[in-house]
C-alpha cells in the first residue's frame, strides 16, 4: 500500500515543474507575452521606418501637395550609380582587410601566448571606441600634419592626401581598424575552445603550421568569419559619420548623399533621399542574402 501511494509523487516530480501543469496553448501565450516587449518596438522602427522610406521614395508621402505615385526620385541614375559603386567599393575593400586582419588576430589570440593576450585587450578596446571617435582620431593620425607625418618626418606638402583625398584611404582605414577588431572578437568568442583541441589533434598527427592554418583553423573559423564579415559589410555600407568626416565632397557615398539631400531646403530632395535609402536597403539585403546562402552551403559541407 505504501509503495502505491509514493508512486504519484514521483511522477509529478519528473514532469517539468517551473511552468506547472500548463497546457501547450498557455505556454505559447506566455512565450508570446515574453517576446512582445522586444517585437513591438522593433516592428515599429524597422517596418515603420523602411515602409515610410519606401512610400516617400515613391512620392506617396510628400511634405506638401497631393500624393502621387512616381519614380522620379530614382531618375538621376548616373549620380546614384556613382554613389552606389563608391559605397560598395569602400565597403568591399574595408571588409576584406578587416576579415584578413581579424582572422589572423583571432588566430594569435587563440594561441594563448602573452602576445595574444595583449592583442585581445587592444582589440577589445578598439571595439568599444565609437566610430565617430575612430574617425576623429584616424583624422589626427593620417592628415597631412598628422601624427604619422610627423613621426616619419615628412612635410605636409609631400604627404599624400589620405584624409579627404581621392583614394578614400582614411575612411577605409577607419572601417578596417574597427571592424577587424569586431571580426576577431566574434571568431574568438565562438570558437576559442573547440579550435585548440582540433589544432592539437592535427599537430599530433604531424600537420605543419601552414597546413593546420589552411585545413583546420580556417575551415572551423569560416562560418563565424562569414557572419561577422557580413555584419561588418552591412554596417559599413549604411554608416554615415566616418565617410562624412574623412571623405571628399564629391563623389559622395550613398549615406552622405542621402543626409545632404534630407537636410537640403529643396522640396524634391526628400523623395530622393528616401530613394537612396531604399537602394541601400536593397543592396544590403542582397549582400546579406548571398552571405546566408554561403553559410548554408558551408553547413551542408560540414
Amino acid at each position, binding site marked *: 500500500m505504501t509503495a502505491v501511494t509514493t508512486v504519484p509523487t514521483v511522477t509529478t516530480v519528473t514532469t*517539468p*515543474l*517551473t511552468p506547472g501543469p500548463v497546457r501547450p496553448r498557455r505556454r*505559447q501565450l506566455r*512565450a*508570446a507575452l515574453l517576446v512582445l516587449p*522586444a517585437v513591438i518596438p*522593433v*516592428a*515599429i*522602427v*524597422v517596418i*515603420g*521606418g523602411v515602409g*515610410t*522610406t519606401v512610400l*516617400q521614395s515613391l512620392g506617396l508621402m510628400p511634405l506638401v501637395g497631393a500624393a502621387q505615385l512616381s519614380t522620379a526620385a530614382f531618375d538621376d541614375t548616373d549620380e546614384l550609380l556613382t554613389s552606389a559603386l563608391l559605397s560598395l567599393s569602400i565597403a568591399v575593400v574595408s571588409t576584406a582587410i578587416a576579415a584578413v586582419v581579424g582572422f589572423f*588576430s583571432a588566430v*594569435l589570440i587563440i*594561441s*594563448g*601566448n602573452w*602576445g*595574444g593576450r595583449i592583442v585581445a585587450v587592444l*582589440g577589445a*578596446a578598439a571595439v*568599444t*571606441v*565609437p*566610430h565617430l*571617435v575612430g574617425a*576623429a*582620431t584616424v583624422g589626427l*593620425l593620417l592628415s597631412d*600634419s*598628422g*601624427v604619422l*607625418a*610627423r613621426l616619419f*618626418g615628412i612635410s605636409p606638402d609631400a604627404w599624400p592626401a589620405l584624409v579627404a583625398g581621392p583614394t578614400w584611404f582614411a575612411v577605409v582605414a577607419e572601417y578596417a*581598424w574597427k571592424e*577587424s*577588431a569586431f571580426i576577431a572578437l566574434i571568431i574568438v568568442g565562438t570558437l576559442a575552445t573547440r579550435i*585548440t583541441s582540433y589544432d*592539437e589533434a592535427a599537430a599530433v598527427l604531424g600537420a605543419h*603550421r601552414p597546413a593546420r592554418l589552411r585545413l583546420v583553423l580556417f575551415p572551423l573559423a569560416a562560418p563565424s568569419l562569414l557572419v561577422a564579415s557580413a*555584419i561588418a559589410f*552591412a554596417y559599413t*555600407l*549604411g554608416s*554615415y*559619420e566616418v565617410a562624412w*568626416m574623412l571623405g571628399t565632397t564629391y563623389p559622395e557615398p550613398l*549615406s552622405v548623399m*542621402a*543626409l545632404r539631400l534630407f537636410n537640403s531646403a529643396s522640396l524634391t530632395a526628400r523623395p530622393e533621399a528616401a530613394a*537612396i*535609402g531604399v537602394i*541601400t536597403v536593397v543592396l544590403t539585403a542582397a549582400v*546579406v542574402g548571398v552571405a546566408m546562402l554561403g553559410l548554408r552551403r558551408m553547413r551542408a559541407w560540414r
Partner: protein
Amino acid sequence: MTLSTSNVDVERAQREQHERRMPGDAGRPLSQSRGVMRTARIVSTALVALWFALPFLPLVLWSFANSWSAPDLLPMSVGTDGLTAAIANGAVAAFGDSLLLSLIVAAIATPVGAMAARALSRHRLPFGRLVSVLLFSPVLLPPFAAVLGINVVLLRAWVPPELGVTLVLVVVAIPYTTFSMRVAYAAYDDGFDEAARTLGATSRFALWRIHLPLIAPALARSAFLAFLVGWSDYLVTLVVGGGQLVTLPLIIASSASGIGNESSVAVLSLSAVIPPLILLGFVSRARNLNPGRQ
C-alpha cells in the same frame, strides 16, 4: 630551516599546479611555434598589436598639447588648454546626457532582450524563426535609411525627440542583447529553478534569488553592449533628436569639423573612449556563477 624550505616547495608546487595547462586550454606547448616560426609569430603579433593601438596614439598626444605645430615630433608645450576648450564647448553637460541616454537604453534593452531570448530559447514560440529574423534585422538595416523614415512617423505622432531617440536606440540595441542572452540561455540549466520550486520557493523568489543571480554575468555583458549602442550613436541622435539632445559624439563632430581644434577634439574623444573601457574591465571580471559548469 627545514620548515622554510618545505614552505617554499609547497608554494612552488601550488604555483606549478596553477600554471599547469589542462587539455583544451589555449597555448598548449604542443602547438607552440619554434625557431623561424616563433620569430614570425612575434613579429606578426607586434604588427597586429600596433594596428589596434596606433589610433589611440593621437588622442593621448593631442589631449595634453597646448601648442604643437606641424614638423615637431612631440607637443611643444604641454598643458590643459584642450580640456579648457572642451569644457567651454559644453563637454560636461554632453557627457552627462550621453551617460544618461546610454544607461536608459541599457536599462530598457537588457531586460526586454533577456525576456525575448528566454522565450526563443525554449522553442515554444509560434513563428519563432520569423521573430528571430525580425529581432536581428536592426543590425543589418542601414541606420540612415530607417532613420529618415521613422523620423517622419515620430514627428507626425508628436513623439518628443528624446523619447524618439531612446526608442530607436533601444531597437538598435535589442539584437545585441537578445542574441547574447540566447547564447547564455543555451547553456543555462533549468534544473536550478526547478529544484528551488520543488523545495517550496515561490516563482517570484526563484526568479530573484536563483534565476537572476545565475544569469547576472550574461546580463552584465548584454547591458554593456546596449550601453555601447547608446554611447556610440551619432546619426540617430542627430536626425531624430533634432538638436534637442546634445550628446558627446555630436560635440566631437562639431569640434572636428572646425580647424585648429585638435587638442579639444582629442580631449573629447578620450573622454568618450574611457567610460566604455572602465565598464569593459568590470564586465570581463564578472565570473560565471553557474555552479553546474564548475
